C-alpha cells in the first residue's frame, strides 16, 4: 500500500517529463473554457501546468489554496491537448495533480461519497434504482417545469433537472407507435465480436441507450456478446485523482473483457471510452497487467466508430432538424470527429445544422456541477444558448453526462428541446425502416 507521501513523490517524478514539454507558448489559453470566462492565467492549462511545475520544484505546497482552487476548477475537457504543439499530455498530468492535491487536502464530502457510490456495485445499484424510481414518479420533470426560466441552474435544482433530463425523450415526429421486436442473434463465425460496456450511470439511468446500442450493432453486422462481471470504468475516479480505485476498477474490467474474448469493446459513453482507451497508461506500472491493458485499450471503440466503419447501414426516415454537440472526451481525448457526423448523415430525412462552439465543453464534466456549480452553470448556459440559436428541434450527443447537463439546461429554459444519444436516434431510424423485422403493435 502506498502512503500519500510515496504517491506524491512518484507522481512528481512522473510529471517531470511531461511538464517539461510545455514551452509556455500560450496556444492553449483560448481553447480553455475556464480561461475564456475568467481571464485569469491561473485558470488556463498553461497556468495550471505552471502550478504543477511549482509543486514539482518544491516552490508550492499542493495543499495551498492556489493549487487546490485552480486544479479543482479545471473541467478536464482536454480541449488544450489538440492545440498543443508540444504534445503535453495534460489529461494524465491533471489526474496526477488531483491525486497529489487530494492527498494534501481531502476532497469535499459530497464528491468523495459520489465516487464511492459509482465505484461500488452494491451501492450503485440501489442508488440508480432510487434515481429511476424518483424519475418514474414524474416529480423531477414537474419540478423542472416549475423551476424553468428562473435563476441559472445550480445545486439541488440542477440535480433534479438532470435526473429529469435522463428520462426517455418524447416521441419524435413521424413516429409510429410500437416497440421494436427483439432481434434473434444470427451466429456466424466471421462477424466481429463486440462487448458493450454497460457502465454505471449509463446502465442505471440510460438502459434504453445500452439496449439501442446492442440493436444497432447487430443491424450493422456485429456479433454482440454479453460480458459478465464488468463494472464502472473508473473514469470519474481517475479524473478526481483517486487513481488507486481507478486502477482496481480497471483490473476488474480487464479481466471481464478478456474472458469474453471480444474483438472490440463498444463504448456509448465517451467519458468511459476515453478512460478505457487509457487503461494502458493507468496500469503502466504493473508489469504483468500493462501489456494486457494496452491490448484491451487497443480494442476500445466509440459506438460511432464501429457504426461508421460499416456505413452505417441506412434505416427509415426521421424528419427532424437536429444539431450535434461533440463530447470533449470523444473529440479532444480520443480525437473522434468524423464518425458521429457520418452516422448522422446516414439517417434519411434528418437535417443536421452546425452548432456554434460544438467543440467546447458543456460544463457537465463528470461531477463538475457539484464541485463548481457557478462556473459549471455559466458554461452550461452558454451551451444551451448556442443550441437554442440553431433552431434545432433536438440535440444529439454521445455521453450521459453531457445529455443530462445540456438536457437539464434546456429543460430549465422551458424550450422543450430533447437531448438524444446518437444511437437512440439511429435506433429509431432502424425501427422505422423495419430493420428489426416486424414491428409488434
Amino acid at each position, binding site marked *: 500500500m502506498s502512503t500519500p507521501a510515496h504517491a506524491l513523490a512518484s507522481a512528481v517524478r512522473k510529471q517531470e517529463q511531461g511538464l517539461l514539454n510545455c514551452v509556455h*507558448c500560450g496556444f492553449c*489559453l483560448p481553447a480553455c473554457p475556464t480561461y475564456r470566462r475568467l481571464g*485569469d492565467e*491561473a485558470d488556463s492549462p*498553461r497556468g495550471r501546468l*505552471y502550478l504543477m511545475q511549482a509543486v514539482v520544484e518544491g516552490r508550492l505546497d499542493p495543499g495551498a489554496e492556489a493549487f487546490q482552487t485552480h486544479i479543482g476548477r479545471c473541467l478536464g475537457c482536454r480541449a488544450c491537448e489538440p492545440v498543443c*504543439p*508540444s*504534445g503535453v499530455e495534460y489529461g494524465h498530468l491533471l489526474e496526477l495533480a488531483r491525486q497529489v492535491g487530494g492527498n494534501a487536502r481531502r476532497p469535499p464530502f459530497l464528491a468523495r461519497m459520489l465516487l464511492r457510490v459509482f465505484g461500488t456495485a452494491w451501492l450503485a445499484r440501489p442508488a440508480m434504482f432510487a434515481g429511476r424510481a424518483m424519475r418514474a414518479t414524474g416529480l423531477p420533470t414537474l419540478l423542472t417545469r416549475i423551476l424553468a426560466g428562473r435563476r441559472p441552474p445550480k445545486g439541488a435544482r440542477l440535480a433534479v433537472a438532470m435526473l429529469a433530463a435522463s428520462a426517455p425523450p418524447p416521441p419524435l415526429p413521424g413516429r409510429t407507435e410500437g416497440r421494436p421486436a427483439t432481434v434473434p442473434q444470427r451466429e456466424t463465425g466471421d462477424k466481429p465480436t463486440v462487448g458493450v460496456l454497460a457502465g454505471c450511470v449509463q446502465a442505471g439511468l440510460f438502459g434504453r441507450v445500452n439496449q439501442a446500442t446492442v440493436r444497432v450493432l447487430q443491424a450493422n453486422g456485429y456479433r454482440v456478446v454479453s460480458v459478465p462481471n464488468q463494472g464502472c470504468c473508473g473514469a470519474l475516479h481517475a479524473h478526481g485523482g483517486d487513481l488507486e480505485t481507478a486502477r482496481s476498477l480497471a483490473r476488474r474490467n480487464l479481466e471481464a473483457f478478456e474472458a469474453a474474448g471480444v474483438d472490440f469493446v463498444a463504448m456509448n459513453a465517451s467519458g468511459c471510452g476515453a478512460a478505457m482507451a487509457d487503461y494502458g497508461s493507468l496500469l503502466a506500472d504493473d508489469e504483468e497487467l500493462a501489456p494486457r491493458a494496452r491490448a484491451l485499450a487497443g480494442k476500445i471503440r466509440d459506438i460511432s466508430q464501429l457504426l461508421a466503419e460499416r456505413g452505417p447501414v441506412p434505416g427509415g426516415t426521421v424528419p427532424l432538424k437536429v444539431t450535434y454537440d461533440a463530447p470533449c472526451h470523444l473529440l479532444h481525448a480520443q480525437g473522434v470527429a468524423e464518425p458521429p457526423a457520418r452516422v448522422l448523415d446516414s439517417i434519411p430525412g434528418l437535417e443536421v445544422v452546425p452548432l456554434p462552439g460544438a467543440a467546447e465543453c458543456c460544463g457537465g464534466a463528470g461531477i463538475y456541477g457539484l464541485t463548481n456549480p457557478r462556473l459549471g452553470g455559466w458554461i452550461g448556459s452558454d451551451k444551451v444558448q448556442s443550441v437554442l440559436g440553431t433552431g434545432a428541434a433536438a440535440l444529439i450527443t454521445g455521453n450521459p453526462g453531457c445529455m443530462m447537463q445540456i438536457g437539464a439546461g434546456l429543460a430549465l429554459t422551458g424550450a422543450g428541446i430533447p437531448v438524444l444519444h446518437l444511437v437512440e436516434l439511429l435506433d429509431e431510424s432502424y425501427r422505422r425502416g423495419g430493420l428489426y423485422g416486424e414491428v409488434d403493435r
Partner: protein
Amino acid sequence: MVPVTLAKSLVEICGRDGVILDEERLLVYESDALTAYRHRPGAVVLPRSTDQVQGAVRAIAEHGLPIVPRGAGTGLSGGAVALDGAVVIGTARMNRILDIDAPNRRAVLQPGVINAELSVAAGAHGLYYAPDPSSQTACTIGGNVAENSGGPHCLKYGVTSRYVTGLAVVLADGSMVRLGGQGRESPGYDLVGLFVGSEGCFGIATEIEVGLLPVPEGVCTLLGIFDRIDDAGQAVSDIVGAGLLPAALEIIDGPTIRAVEDSVFAAGYPIDAEAALVIEFDGMEAGLEHDAERAAALCALAGAREVRTARDEDERMALWKGRKKAFGAMGRIAPDLLVQDATVPRTTLPSILRGISDIGQRYDLVVANVFHAGDGNLHPNILFDRRDEHELERVERASKEIMQLCVDSGGTITGEHGVGLDKKHHMDLIYGPDELDAMWQVRRVFDPGGVMNPGKVLPEDTGPAEGAGLPEGIGGD
C-alpha cells in the same frame, strides 16, 4: 506583496475577482512565453473597462509602484514580465469587438481581442485583419500593438503599425487620451505611429481602431524541399530579386521539420530534408499561377529537390499549421528554448545561416531555424535545458555571438518580437548614446515618472542624467 491600502483600492475598482494578491496564485504570472526570465508581480489586476484601467493606474501610481501591461503572455522578449514587484494590468477580460464598420473596412476593439478571432469575425463581411503573428490563435491585439507584431504575411502586407489607425490610451497618470482615429490619416504628428511598438512603456491601449482588408480572391501555396539550407536561402533571394512579390516566404530548417512532423500538426514535410521553403502568392486569380510557376522554376534553379503545390485549402492549412506551430513543437526536442529575432539583409541569408550553424556546433547546442525569410527576419531557436547550468551559460554566449554576427552583416537585433527585457542590453549594438538619449526623451514625454513597464527596452545606464529638465506629459483629462 503590494501595500494593503493599494490592495483595497484595487478591489474597490475592479472587484474582488478582478484582483489577484495571493503570492501563490501570482506564480503563474512570473514569465511570458520566454521562460528564461521569471519575476513574480506584486499583484495582478484584470479590469473590464477603460474606466477600471484608469482607476487602477491612478491607484498604483499613487503608491509609487511600477505597472506592466500584459495581454495573453505569449510575448518572446520578456516584455510582460513584472520587475521589482510591479503590478500587472492584464487585458484578458477586455476582449470585446466593439464595432466592425464593414463599408469603411474598419474595426474598433478592446485590447484583449485575440488576433485570429478578429479575422473570423471580419470574415462574415469578406474582410480580414492582415498581420498574422505565428501565435495569432492566442495573442491579443493589444499585445500586437505594444510589440508592433509582424507575421509571415507581413512581407507583402506590412506589420501592425500599418493597420492601427486610432487608439484610446491610458497614460501613466491615469488620464486617457485619444490618438488618431476614424481612418488612416490624422493631421499633425503621427502619435499612433509613435505608440505602436512602444512595448508597454508609453501607456495602455484600451481601445484600438484597425483597418481591415478584403479577403484575397485567390491563394496559391508552394513548398520547396531542399537538401541544403543555403540553397533555400538563395532561392528566397532569387525570388525577391526577380521582382516577384509573394505574400509570404518562410524557411523551416531540418531540426524544426522533424519536431513539427513529430507533433499533432504534422504537415507532410519530408523529415530527411534540410530546409522547407513555404511560398505563398495571393491576390487576383489572374496571374497567380504564372507567379507560382516562376517561383517554382527559381527554386529548382537554386537546387530544390522537389517543389509541391498545395492542391486544396486543407493542404494549404496543414502546410501553414506546421509553420505556425513550429515554436511550440520545439518542446519535443528540449524543455527550454531561446528564440532569437534578428533581421539581416536578405542577400546575406546563406552566409548567415552557415554562420549560425557553425556557432551552434562550436557551443554544442541544437539551433533550429524557422523564420520569415522574405523579410530576412531570422528566428534561430537555441534549444536547452535550464536545469543544466553549464548549458545555460553556453546558450547565453552563443546567443550573443549570433546577434553580433547579424549586426556585423548589416542587420538588427529584433524584427518583430520586441526588445523587452531580453535584448535591452544589446541596444548599444545598434544605437549610439545620442540616439538612445533621444528615445529616453520620447519615453519620458509619455511617462515622466518612469512608471510604465520600467526596466524594458532601453538600458538604464544610457538614460539622461537625473533632473535633466523632463518635458511635461502630454496627458490631460
